[in-house]
């Protein structure tokens, strides 16, 4: 056994030895930009938040001709580890997807001052500045959730609507607060049921839990349920299909996950934000700081297209658009907690 291992090791080293790394000078100025992306704990394939970021990356590859690689960390200690893998490689721009990366981005950005970083949902602590080589991508999800609340309240027949949050954190409270405020603005008599799937990142990838919560809300009379819970929401769709009620998707257009049962999706255009950051990097206009996107900047919104037009009553659409105009004109303040 020992001999076979030493033979294997010898083989490895000989293979390494004969292919030395290419010298840096070989990288011509015209070489495409390489972007590294590190996914959130929910991971790629959540058909929601992470996938939206990935779409931005793919779009940049197609339209701007960049190259990209991605890493899916498995444990908390691997977040910084993954960022450093990219930072020590030839990736001038590194994108981290999720608030949970805030600390890790700060550490790695300090260790690699010449590299650029972007962090989606970067959590800004009060009185703290963003490092000069970091862009914090923030969204005003409460604004689009407000429109969602308006549509849900005016579409509901039972006058009871539900909200399923993923992890119980301030970021998700923004969705809830906007949704509640929108429902109350449209119809003060509508009851809003609220539940969270848990208090750990696991709460964003627990479809069974999502289905359980949704079924319990349906039993209490809810006929429309909005979820902001990553892949946990797939369980909410399952419950909607089973009990013939309507669900509302989040972050990406989730119509395809339960055709006919998705009233609309409250979109957070992470793809747009990711694309814009890559574009700025390419144009040499990357500048550290906070970029905040709301209804006005078209960073958030809701889906209204040929698939779901028939599901949304005319009055709901009308009132939602009225609310949008008021919010964009700063005439309506949407609470975020």
């Amino acid at each position: 056994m020992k001999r076979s291992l030493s033979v294997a090791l010898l083989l490895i080293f000989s293979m390494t030895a004969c292919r030395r790394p290419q010298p840096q000078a070989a990288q011509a100025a015209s070489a495409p930009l390489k972007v590294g992306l590190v996914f959130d704990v929910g991971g790629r394939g959540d058909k929601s938040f992470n996938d939206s970021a990935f779409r931005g990356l793919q779009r940049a590859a197609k339209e701007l001709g960049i190259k990209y690689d991605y890493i899916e960390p498995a444990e908390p200690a691997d977040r910084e580890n993954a960022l450093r893998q990219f930072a020590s490689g030839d990736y001038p721009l590194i994108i981290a997807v999720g608030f949970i990366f805030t600390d890790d981005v700060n550490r790695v950005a300090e260790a690699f001052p010449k590299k650029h970083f972007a962090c989606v949902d970067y959590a800004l602590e009060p009185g703290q500045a963003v490092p000069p080589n970091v862009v914090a991508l923030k969204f005003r999800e409460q604004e689009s959730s407000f429109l969602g609340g308006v549509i849900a309240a005016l579409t509901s027949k039972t006058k009871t609507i539900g909200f399923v949050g993923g992890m119980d954190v301030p970021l998700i409270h923004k969705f809830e607060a906007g949704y509640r405020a929108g429902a109350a603005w449209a119809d003060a008599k509508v009851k809003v049921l609220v539940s969270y799937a848990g208090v750990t990142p696991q709460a964003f990838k627990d479809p069974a839990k999502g289905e359980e919560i949704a079924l319990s809300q349906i039993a209490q009379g809810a006929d429309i349920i909005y979820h902001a819970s990553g892949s946990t929401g797939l369980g909410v769709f399952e419950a909607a299909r089973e009990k013939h009620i309507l669900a509302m998707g989040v972050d990406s257009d989730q119509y395809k996950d339960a055709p006919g049962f998705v009233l609309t999706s409250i979109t957070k255009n992470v793809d747009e934000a990711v694309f814009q950051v890559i574009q700025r990097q390419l144009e040499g206009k990357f500048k550290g700081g906070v970029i905040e996107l709301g209804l006005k900047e078209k960073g958030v919104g809701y889906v209204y297209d040929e698939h779901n037009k028939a599901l949304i009553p005319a009055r709901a659409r009308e009132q939602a658009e009225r609310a949008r105009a008021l919010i964009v004109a700063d005439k309506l303040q949407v609470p975020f907690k």
Partner: protein
Amino acid sequence: MRALIKSEGRWITAAAALSLAVLLLGVVGLGRNPALVLRLMVSRVLLSPYGLGQTLYKTTTLIFTGLACALAFRCGLFNIGAEGQVYAGGFLMTAVGLALPGLPAVLLIPLLLVVSALGGGLWALLPGYLKAKRGAHEVITTMMMNFIALALTNYLVMARFHVPETIHTQELPAAASLPLAGAFARTFQGSAVNASLLVALALAAAVWYFLWRTPLGFELRAVGANPEAARSSGVPVESRLFLILVASGALAGLAGVNFILGYKHYFEQGFAAEEGFLGIAVALVAKNHPVGVVFAALLFALLSQAGLALNTVIPRELFEILQSAVIFIVVICQNRLGEKA
């Protein structure tokens, strides 16, 4: 002793060689170039100081949880609760550290080490008591304690201790930080490997000494080998089972030292990330020998770090399959050879 190490070494070498074979098979199956994968594995993990540092960091946690499981197995006990014990120890240590801001490092660090062991031991107290007094199976009780630990620490962090917009507590006072390897060897700069590794290695030696060089250790091994025989030769089996489950919990409780005192300096929800369960696999591959635990921990840490470093080339799932394959291979080989012996 030498014979023991030799036989442990053989297991781990076999596991390493076979896992390499499985990996290459998987890589070829995915249509990737195995030579490229091997080259990257060497350059990004084995020959990169950062990669090596991260591997040693991961090894450290696994030594603690591996020792915890191995010690219990030696005594015939299945401690499935290492995961929960890691959280209990880590949380108690953080709470005490936050409550004592003024202490100097020479007092604070030993105190926190003791407290984390205490927390883990405390979490094994109930399963230990139920095992000794009622004969309740420790697999069930320790597993239930896992759920309780996770839910309770999550609740406490969110309800009382967390920094807004995060899922972790305040940072511990600077005096509570264990030195990073990068502070002594510049080449490891940036990596999370820290002095906890020395604590882990010292504990491995201590567990070995305890089991094979003390009368109590002999008793415990006797209980593990044949409880009835041990009982008839006068060993108080029940009280020994209780003691060893609590000691196993204490070892697992110390695992949090690596992440909390050595790396991030705060308690983060879910920080153990199933390293407690992986401890069972480490103990299994090591055949419950403390020296074997060190090397088995290194093997699993290498797999984990390689999975991350190669993630841009091959999917992470392949390494997860690989991890399971290693366990399978070891179980099969051990049973066959065990029959022959």
